[in-house]
């Protein structure tokens, strides 16, 4: 079967466009894998691409790459949100920033830089939180590309986009392309809200690191990290309660470091360093330019294909939607379809409660502490109620009354099979769980 390859390069139409000579090869020529029903090569495809309004969330390591890539993929109207300012430790990979930009807003500097470098692209920055914006704001975009380091922010935008889908209005479904990296590893995924598996469905793929039990920190430290966490959580509270810990303040880090070092000495533990103190306290994740480049480019490659249909993209229903990347031992990618989950609290089919293993003997306090770490929940500020009563609330005025619950055992508060509804101020959704007592 021969595919007819036509060239529209010659002739008198507005093509070729000098600057976009390379890009137009794909926009004006069909390929062996293009879908003739979805892709009409030529002027119409160019206009389709230029009409797209794309939102980029994050202007850090991934965000800088994403802005550059989208601008050089022919997108003309790009918005970017980031609340952070530039730190000196960003300069080893966030290539739109210079030493003289330290302290300025990332979104602003990044937008200005790319606008200047790539003529004809408009980039609108917003220096603030994604939570500042409402559905109406998100509705104006045709697509969202996300390069964040916060799981919470990802879950928030995911739940918001899923909530916006209106069956009557196809424009209300905004594809979400999401990238993430850690050291030599990363992933790129495409979500069509309500159609494909969503961030919440995939939550257990990104389990948080287990916290060290408080009693270990308080009485039996064994690792240098335990001494640092002790200084961070216990010693600071004891000695400097009135000063808010600022992990960017060198004096504060130095204080913690010295406390940790003294404690390590007391227990004959080796290895506490300033750099480790910083790493533990700020929960620093190693980051390099190359992994960011790979993951961001993969995201933008999908975004470009979605916007133009110049080739099939990830996220087609029942097709692959997730690419996992590992680069520390050779290069390995695994691309697969992550299945949508019926009991997903965000995109699930209804109000199916997810089974949740609960140790009947632990206290409510322990249960709440555990929720933050459990891969399938990761809720830090939960309000918990059963069918008939509230077990715990986040409102301070109500907590007084519920405080006695914290010391009660779970078995005395809930029954096997009972439904728990948990809400968390970080997410515009509620999580339903069915209690399964572990043996």
């Amino acid at each position, binding site marked *: 079967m021969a595919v007819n390859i036509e*060239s529209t390069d010659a002739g008198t139409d507005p093509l070729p466009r000098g600057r976009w000579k390379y890009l137009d090869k794909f926009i004006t020529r069909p*390929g062996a894998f293009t879908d003739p029903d979805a892709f009409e090569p030529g002027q119409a495809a160019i206009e389709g691409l230029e009409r797209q309004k794309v939102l980029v969330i994050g202007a850090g390591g991934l965000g800088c790459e994403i802005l550059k890539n989208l601008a050089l993929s022919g997108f003309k109207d790009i918005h970017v949100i980031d609340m952070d300012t530039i730190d000196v430790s960003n300069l*080893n*990979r966030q290539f739109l920033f210079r030493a003289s930009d330290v302290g300025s807003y990332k979104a602003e500097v990044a937008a200005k830089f790319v606008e200047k470098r790539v*003529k004809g692209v408009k980039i609108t920055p917003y220096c603030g939180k994604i939570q500042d914006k409402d559905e109406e704001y998100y509705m104006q975009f045709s697509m969202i590309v996300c390069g964040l380091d916060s799981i919470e922010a990802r879950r928030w935008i995911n739940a918001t986009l899923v909530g916006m889908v209106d069956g009557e209005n196809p424009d209300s479904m905004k594809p979400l392309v999401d990238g993430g990296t850690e050291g030599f590893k990363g992933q*790129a995924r495409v979500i069509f809200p309500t159609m494909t598996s969503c961030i919440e469905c995939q939550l257990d793929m990104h389990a948080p690191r287990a916290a060290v039990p408080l009693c270990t920190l308080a009485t039996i430290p064994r690792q240098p990290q335990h001494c640092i966490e002790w200084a961070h959580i216990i010693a600071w509270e004891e000695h400097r309660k009135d000063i808010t810990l600022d992990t960017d303040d060198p004096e504060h880090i130095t204080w913690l470091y010295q406390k940790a070092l003294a404690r390590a000495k007391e227990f004959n533990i080796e290895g506490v360093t300033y750099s480790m103190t910083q790493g533990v306290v700020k929960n620093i994740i190693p980051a390099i330019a*190359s992994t960011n480049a790979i993951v961001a480019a993969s995201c933008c490659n999908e975004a470009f294909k979605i916007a133009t249909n110049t080739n099939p993209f990830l996220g087609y229903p029942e097709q692959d939607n997730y690419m996992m990347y590992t680069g520390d*031992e*050779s290069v390995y*990618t695994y691309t697969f379809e992550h299945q949508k989950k019926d009991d997903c609290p965000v995109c699930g089919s209804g109000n199916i409660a997810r089974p949740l293993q609960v140790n009947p003997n632990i206290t409510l306090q322990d249960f709440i502490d555990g929720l933050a770490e459990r891969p399938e929940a990761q809720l830090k500020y939960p309000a918990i109620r059963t069918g008939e009563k509230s077990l715990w609330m986040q409102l301070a005025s109500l907590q007084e009354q519920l405080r006695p619950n914290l010391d009660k055992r779970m078995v005395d508060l809930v029954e096997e099979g009972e439904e728990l509804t948990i809400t968390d101020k970080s997410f515009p959704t509620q999580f339903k769980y069915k209690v399964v007592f572990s043996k």
Partner: protein
Amino acid sequence: MADLPPPVQGPTAKEKKYDRQLRLWGATGQIALENSHILLINSGPGVVGVETLKNLVLPGIGNFTIQDSSIVSEADLGVNFFLEEEHLGGYRAEHTCNLLKELNPDVDGHVITEPLESWLPQEGALKPYTLIIATAPVQPELLAKLADHASAALIPLFYAHSVGFYSHFSIHLPPAYPIVDTHPSPETTQDLRLLRPWPELLQYAEAKTANIDSMSAEDHGHIPYVALLLHYLEEWKKDHNGKIPETYKEKTEFRSVVTQAARTNNPEGGEENFDEAVAAVLKSLNPPQPSSDVKEIFKATECVLVGEKSPSFWVIANAIGMFHQKHGVLPVPGAVPDMKARSVDYIELQNTYKSKARRDLAEVVENVRFLERNNKRQHPADEKDIEAFCKNAAHIKLVRGRPFHIVQLDASSKKVVTWGDRAKSIAQTLTLPDSLIPLYIAFLAWDEFTATHAKDGLGGAPQVPGEQDPESDAEKLTGIAFKMADDLIKEANAAIDEDEYATIKGQIRQFAQELVRAGGAELHNIGALTGGMVSQEVIKVITEQYVPVDNTCIFDGIKSKSMVIKV
């Protein structure tokens, strides 16, 4: 006064800037980067090359040089981020170099604007460079010259394609490229020697488990799991004629012995240290055998025939081989995972492992010095290197670098591509679902097409497929690729099912069509993605850390899949 912690040495400006990467490759990796001088031979639209450099300038290589004789055109501005309108008509090398240098004041950049064909043959042209990256298209005879230099000077050479939605890169490393610091994942590195305990470790376990049944709950719940496992192993041996649990069945049986020994009559309904012991049974009760990779290093000619001029890696490898021959195990690495235990007991356990590791190291050092005397070596190996080798002995890697394919076009060569000892394995991989070998073949065909077609038809600038006449170029490229596939199957002497071969040919045709569609164009995204991968491999090769691609990686940006093969 002695109790006061020492004054704090805050991080230096450089440590602050590079903090996020120093946590991966450390100060030694950073120094290696800073001592490098990378040459980029940039061709085609030049995106993959420049994006590669971007990711190397940011983390702080010492020097880079761009060889590129092309002039900035309008088309460059739509695909290359490191050019601006005012550069139109100037040398592309010069302007990209300047904009790249802005990224990091610690890095120095240089340019060569002379055409490759006249610059490369000059005496000593490649001498300053510690690593070379060439991006397609490069004339095969010039690429062969680069490969000859790489082989003679033991300099790593990278060759990359980025054409439309597809890309490829190959790495030509020296024939013996050892990596000591492979950064294995912590889960795979635990080597606790529970089946080969030494007397001090046994004494430790005995002391911690004495009167285990009458211990207080507090004590019982804090016995380190290593001591628990050693204790129950001794008990097991008493009931099994001195034998340890060997089969899977025996190990699961042993596991239930440990499970049942935990006390459950407490509020938690169990004991964390026992949980840890149970979880560790299957992975810890294995005889400490060196991997086949490590055994191969011991058997390598360079290791067996260590001499006066051998790199110190081989002297240390030989010395560890001697240790292994004598004891049947590798030196103890000395690291102990965290576990539920009281601080003092844990530190004591750590010291038991550390002091054994030190004794093993001392023995290896002695072996090294013996070899050095015997071979009249001038410079003794650094003890730090020997220590690093001992610590990671089970995870050392040796990459056998080799030249990658360069299409042979002179009349004397019978085949355009020779697969040699890889023919069989590659022919087998060809038929796997999702195999990207058909794409690799299409890229080789692309090289042959480009080398045999000139823009003016008179041997001028190379003409890439699809630039002018996509339809007929697609037929031609497919024909070249089919011939290469036929040759591969012939060379491999492989029997391949006709239907299966028809499927593969269909894939080759589609890949070729998509390459032709590009007409030599790079998509910025694919250039950036591939530049990310190439720069990552360059960093691994320069720092001699982590494990590089051996030796070819192919990426399909339509399906978002990659494949690594050795060619």
